[in-house]
């Protein structure tokens, strides 16, 4: 054996070892902090990509019309495609629009049917969807909208203003209908890709004429030619107001046709009530209008693009298709994408019940179910687990049976929870006929956490010094009294710690619950009612692809809940060990 190295070398190696240990432990803490921080951040803030063909420019009164909804609706604006979808039966309820479960009830007053058709359908000859009710007048439409939660109607802007100032339970919804349409060749595939989504900066560059070839946007090798909107048209006004307009160089439309275009669009010039709207020109976006000419140029010029209203493009497309053009060769909107950062977790998310599988609403009932689950699981598992531990420590003779029991509990602790879930499903749900519900789930969970409770309680009981037991027995106390009044109180902090660990495991459990507790997100009404808890909610939000953001905000809530629970229990334990039953 080598002789001892000199003290300096020994000290150095000790320092190195210490450094390694320190680095490892600090990195563990750092990883932990990273995970918790990430989940909390992701839960609180959502960073989402919004992709839309429409620019984020919202018109309250497009073409002198107003889209009105019941005042309970939360949406304050919508894309033109949504409006079109509402009135052509593409949507049947509000879920995808403003996160309400109400059925959609579109309505249209007969008096302004033609203008409304132009706005919502892109051409007045297009068919209204079967869901759309045609009401007699604007007042009827307003009344209908105020009465029905799911209603949406198009009325003239003036009528809407009048009704709102008169206190009707309606509100107007802004419309985003401005987009950048491009010639069909621009949108063709290039190799395996196509023109990319444009950011706001891209769109500004494009409109200001500093982009010369579509290749710059990963598009085809075509020169960019930006057409400007017909001068003094609603389109030009909208573009100017949107803030995207740059230096538009050339006018695509002869001045002479502008007046006609403007006149045909202005609903304000149309008498509001009692007017036969059918008397309007058959097609305002027809071949002769400046808008049609403008769209025609976009259609015919390779590499052309320009600002276009969605309904005009739709109307133009319909006409071209009627004339025999294929859909692929028509101009289409460029896709805009933007990163939107917003609050993901709000107070309302905590206090509102979930709706539509958690797509909308909050998680209040799910939090409550989780609390019920914790309580019920503890009620079932804690007495059994503690009693088993007391038996093992205080009564059982140390021997083969006890070793077998220990081995059993340890094995149980190592079994994957999904197997507990399968067992629970077959036994509690099936054989015992408890059904998918709180009771089945909690019984399964109890089985799962019992080994933890037993082992930690055992350790806690073992750590109670024997002299305490002897002292109690020597005072003439029975064994049971000794256990109840000396041993258990002395072991209480340790037992409580075990229970916290077990509850932590139970709260995070998903696999065992999916098969046993069901997934009803309403508040559990009883032991047999199916209940969704936070962990299963997160799983289902992911698994059913409902909402990544909501899954994370639920995860953040779960995380905070577990942290709070731990803190609370820790305080309780500290309180217990400080007082040790001292208050009398």
């Amino acid at each position, binding site marked *: 054996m080598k002789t001892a190295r000199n003290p300096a070398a020994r000290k150095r190696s000790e320092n190195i070892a210490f450094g390694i240990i320190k680095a490892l432990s600090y990195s563990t803490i750092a990883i932990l902090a990273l995970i918790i921080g990430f989940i909390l951040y992701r839960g609180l803030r959502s960073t989402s990509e919004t992709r839309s063909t429409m620019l984020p420019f919202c018109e309250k009164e497009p073409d002198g019309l107003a889209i009105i909804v019941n005042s309970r609706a939360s949406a304050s604006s919508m894309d033109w495609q949504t409006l079109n979808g509402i009135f052509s039966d593409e949507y049947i309820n509000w879920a995808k629009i403003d996160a309400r479960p109400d059925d959609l009830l579109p309505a249209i007053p007969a008096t302004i049917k033609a203008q409304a058709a132009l706005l919502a359908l892109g051409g007045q000859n297009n068919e209204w969807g079967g869901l759309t009710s045609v009401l007699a007048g604007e007042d009827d439409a307003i009344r209908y909208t105020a009465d029905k939660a799911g209603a949406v109607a198009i009325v003239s802007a003036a009528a809407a203003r009048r009704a709102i100032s008169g206190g009707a339970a309606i509100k107007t919804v802004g419309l985003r209908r401005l987009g950048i349409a491009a010639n069909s060749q621009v949108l063709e595939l290039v190799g395996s890709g196509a023109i990319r989504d444009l950011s706001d900066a891209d769109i500004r560059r494009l409109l200001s004429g500093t982009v010369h070839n579509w290749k710059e946007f990963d598009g085809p090798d075509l020169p960019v030619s930006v057409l400007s909107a017909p001068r003094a048209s609603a389109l030009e006004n909208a573009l100017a107001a949107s803030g995207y307009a740059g230096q538009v160089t050339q006018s695509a439309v002869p001045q002479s046709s502008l007046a006609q275009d403007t006149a045909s669009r202005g609903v304000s010039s149309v008498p509001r009530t009692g007017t036969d709207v059918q008397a309007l020109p058959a097609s305002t976006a027809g071949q002769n209008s400046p808008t049609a000419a403008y769209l025609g140029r976009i259609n015919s010029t390779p590499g052309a693009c320009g600002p276009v209203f969605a309904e005009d493009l739709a109307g133009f497309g319909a006409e071209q298709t009627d004339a025999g053009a294929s859909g692929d060769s028509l101009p289409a909107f460029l896709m805009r994408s933007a990163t939107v950062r917003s609050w993901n977790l709000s107070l309302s998310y905590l206090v509102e019940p979930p709706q539509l599988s958690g797509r909308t609403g909050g998680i209040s009932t799910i939090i409550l179910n989780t609390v019920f689950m914790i309580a019920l699981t503890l009620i079932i598992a804690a007495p059994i687990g503690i009693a088993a531990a007391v038996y093992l420590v205080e009564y059982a*003779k140390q021997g083969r049976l006890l070793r077998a029991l220990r081995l059993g509990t340890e094995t149980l602790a190592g079994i994957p929870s999904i197997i507990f879930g399968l067992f629970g499903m077959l036994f509690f749900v099936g054989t015992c006929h408890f059904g998918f519900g709180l009771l089945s789930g909690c019984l399964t969970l109890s089985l799962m956490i019992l080994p933890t409770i037993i082992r930690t309680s055992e350790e806690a009981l073992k750590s109670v*010094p024997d*002299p*305490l*037991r*002897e*002292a*109690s*027995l*020597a*005072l*003439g*106390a*029975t064994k049971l*009294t000794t256990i109840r*009044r*000396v041993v258990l*109180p*002395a072991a209480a902090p340790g037992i409580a710690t075990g229970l916290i660990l077990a509850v932590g495991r139970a709260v995070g459990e998903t696999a065992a619950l999916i098969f046993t507790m069901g997934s009803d997100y309403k508040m559990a009404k009883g032991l047999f009612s199916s209940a969704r808890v936070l962990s299963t909610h997160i799983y289902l939000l992911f698994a059913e692809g409902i909402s990544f953001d909501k899954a994370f905000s639920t995860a953040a809530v779960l995380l905070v809940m577990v942290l709070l629970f731990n803190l609370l229990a820790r305080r309780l334990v500290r309180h217990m*060990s*400080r*007082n*040790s*039953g*001292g*208050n*009398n």
Partner: protein
Amino acid sequence: MTEAVSTALPAAGLPAEGPAVKPKIEVSGLNLWYGETQALKNINIEVESNSITALIGPSGCGKSTFLRTLDRMNDLIPGVRTEGRVLYDGMDVFKDIDVIELRKRVGMVFQKPNPFPMSIYDNVAYGPRVHGIRDKKELDRIVEQSLRSAALFDEIKDRLSRPALGLSGGQQQRLCIARVLAVEPDVLLMDEPTSALDPISTAKIESLLAGLKNIYTIIIVTHNMQQAGRVSDRTGFFLHGELVEYGSTKDIFFRPQDPRTENYISGRFG
């Protein structure tokens, strides 16, 4: 060596000495085995009421085992087998008296202070509560009296509701004595009660013993021969599980009959 006591005059002849004549504890032919190992060999001893008996001897000589036989604490140890008779007030502790009742009457103070992790009050009130006393006033009285008897009350009267584990070692041990006194035993068994304490605490407990003697019969196991000499009336010397010699403390210390006792007393071993 025990003839002096056992052949004492009948009670009728000496009324004043009456209670003292009948031994409080009478052990005859006691053998005890831990599994195969014999720990006590044919122990015969009689202990008078209101006396302090010290049991001395080297470590592992069986004196603690003997003490624990008297209130049947050895029952707790698996594999212990006992033979012989242990009479408490004439009742066989293994047959005639319930173990709970026995332990209530024969209290025990352990080597290390072992207060319960409760408040001081609850520690003292534990025994009475276990034995069914619920009345708050009665409990208060018992607690105060017991703490006074253990010479602890004045030191801690303001913090009865504080955790007992916050007391000093000596105070804890006196608390343990008070806890035993609260169940109103008439025999106190003390298993090296001062071995874990400093000299000042030891002195306090020793002076406490002198006062307690008037009410209780005390048997104290000690390693400290000076202590045995100071506090006890009678002394028994244990060696290798045998009671080698038992007699008045003066005799044992100054006129030991057995050479082994003399060797031990004079410090040749042990």
